[in-house]
């Protein structure tokens, strides 16, 4: 049964207003939705980054549930520790056996693709019953826009700047979602805030499976992507329509594409509104635009094949 926005609106917010995130930021959109996808109490372990910094400036907090931050690269290990204690205290009869708590680890692309990939991989392999959500805004936003391994090919970031001799980042984005699939965990998915129902469903599945689950969610960042912040949701839609950020899920190893654009749009349409790609539209960088389109096409084809093999 499809969830109704009206019903979700009735639910208590676990991340409330008053945080300091930028106008048009995708983070609150994503987490207000994800935190609604379970009725159980939640403990959140948050990596250092925009979400953590903007929501917990002492003595205020925007968190209306249990929340912990310890460092940048270890949200998964921290959540794993909380979950291990929950199991231990149940085992010792210090917590009632029927008590339910959900454990949510959260990190940005820097905290997940880069510095935190080891602790994430470890926690997933060990099978902790946690949900890890990466909000992928393609950049180290909190520290002012440095490249990460999630920064797309051609994007200008402060440590991969476009210049007269550089077309921006020359490396392709790491495919972290597939790396997580390779961990053979029960549930892995990619989502985006513009399809809120799909995001909600995926979060719900992630919370419900026993064992680790991973969600990679495209996160709008008007500040670092440099676009008109009123156009964020349209931009996210373009990421899906150009297949630059496909929406799919992998349940017990089986791929399923959740959104196939009727007509796949050229990747240009996703790049054009964003200042971080502006330099690509200069004549000398035309080759880079071509290269980006090629990569997107190839990845989309591969994904379709994987879904086909899975029988979906």
């Amino acid at each position, binding site marked *: 049964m499809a969830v109704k926005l009206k019903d979700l609106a009735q639910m208590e917010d676990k991340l409330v207003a008053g945080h300091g995130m930028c106008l048009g930021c995708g983070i609150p959109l994503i987490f207000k939705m994800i935190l609604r996808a379970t009725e159980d109490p939640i403990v959140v372990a948050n990596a250092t980054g925009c979400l953590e910094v903007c929501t917990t400036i002492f003595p205020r907090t925007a968190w209306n549930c249990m929340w912990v931050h310890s460092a940048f690269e270890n949200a998964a290990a921290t959540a794993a520790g909380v979950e291990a204690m929950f199991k231990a205290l149940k085992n010792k009869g*210090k917590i009632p056996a029927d008590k339910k708590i959900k454990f949510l680890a959260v990190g940005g692309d820097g905290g997940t693709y880069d510095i935190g990939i080891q*602790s994430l991989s470890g926690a997933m392999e060990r099978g902790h019953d946690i949900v890890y959500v990466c909000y992928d805004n393609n950049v180290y936003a909190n520290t002012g826009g440095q490249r990460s391994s999630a920064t797309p090919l051609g994007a200008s970031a402060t440590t991969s700047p476009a210049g007269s001799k550089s077309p921006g980042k020359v490396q392709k984005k790491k495919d972290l979602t597939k790396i997580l699939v390779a961990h053979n965990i029960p549930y892995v998915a990619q989502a985006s805030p513009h399809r809120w129902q799909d995001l909600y469903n995926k979060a719900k599945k992630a919370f419900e499976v026993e064992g680790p689950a991973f969600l990679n969610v495209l996160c709008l960042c008007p500040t670092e992507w440099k676009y008109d912040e009123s156009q964020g949701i349209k931009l996210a839609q373009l990421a899906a329509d150009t297949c630059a950020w496909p929406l799919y899920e992998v349940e017990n190893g089986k791929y399923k594409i959740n959104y196939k654009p009727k007509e796949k749009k050229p990747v240009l349409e996703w790049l054009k509104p964003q200042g971080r790609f502006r330099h690509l539209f200069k004549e000398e960088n035309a080759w880079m635009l071509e290269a980006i389109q090629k990569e997107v096409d190839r990845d989309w084809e591969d994904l379709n094949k994987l879904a086909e093999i899975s029988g979906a």
Partner: protein
Amino acid sequence: MKATKILNGNQTIAEAVRQIDPDVIAAYPITPSTAIVEIIASFRADGLITGEFVCPESEHSAMSVCIGAASAGGRVMTATCSQGLALMWEMLYIAAGLRLPIVAAIANRALSAPINIHGDHSDTMGARDSGWIQIYSEDSQEAYDNFIQAFRIGEHPDVLTPVMVGFDGFIISHSAEVVQVEDDAAVKRFIGDFKPPYPLLDTNRKFTVGPIDFTDYYFEHKRNQIEGIENSPRVIEEVGKEFGRTFGRTYGFFEEYRTDDAEIGIVVMSSAAGTGKDAVDELRAEGKKIGLLKPRVFRPFPYRQIAEALKKMKAVAVLDRSSSPGAFGAPLFTEVRSALYDYEKRPKLVNYVYGLGGRDIKVEHFKEVAGKLEKIATTGKVDEMLGYLNLRE
């Protein structure tokens, strides 16, 4: 049942772990503390402990798991040393800053480079400002006793500070000794239950652990944290006495050996103190007025008590099993020297770095030091304040 057993340092720690049965143990193997992790794993496999044993992919994650688990609310421990402790470094400060009384067993080992697996104190001395309480052990018995007391000290509501218990890698971790293992139930009674004040798993409440402080609060929060370790001396003393009443072995901040009328003295920690005591006995037999002081607690540093114990001596050598390159002496020396500064009458002080990378220290080396101290005591002159023992120059 209470029993006398032949165990090495790692085995005694594992015995204590079995008796305490912490709620969560997260640890990563590294020589020479690996056996602790292995024995714990086998205890878990045989159902002798019921807590969760987590085997993370690194020490950084091991300490992160400990921090998550301790924030969740319960008793938590790890074991490591050397590179492992170094890899935890970032998280050590966070454990202390979040006031989580995690206990770590450390089989003290040298730090790379060059890589070396043997015993010295470089690892824990490198963590001396991390906010952890540090207790050092002379032998397996002390490692066992200190490890048990560590939970009571760290978990005290006025303290709430993590504790690391050091014992020398290989020299203690791998040497079999006669150890008194106390009765399981008596140990359990001694450590009692731990009620953490802010457990994340109490989901009827709502709070934010580990928020960001700007210039307006960070300093006050750090001051609060410092107060925790400043409150610990009273607790360390109480717990040490209660341990004595319960099990017959009383502990304080340090041990004084034949210092009563001593004119010269040697300050040395951990296993080398055992050798030092033998040297003192031999020198005493020759009529030399020498004594030894073995600090047990390095953080908080019992500066007043140590200064009181040393102030009447004429010359004292502080022996350090780590170095502080470029500093005015190694860590223990700078603390002791600073502690004596306010005394008008105080001994001349010299510092010897010894035993790096597991280099042996023997009775003859203590005698060499005693010879130099005697000369200083009679002439009042120090030729060489900072030196090394048993080193090829």
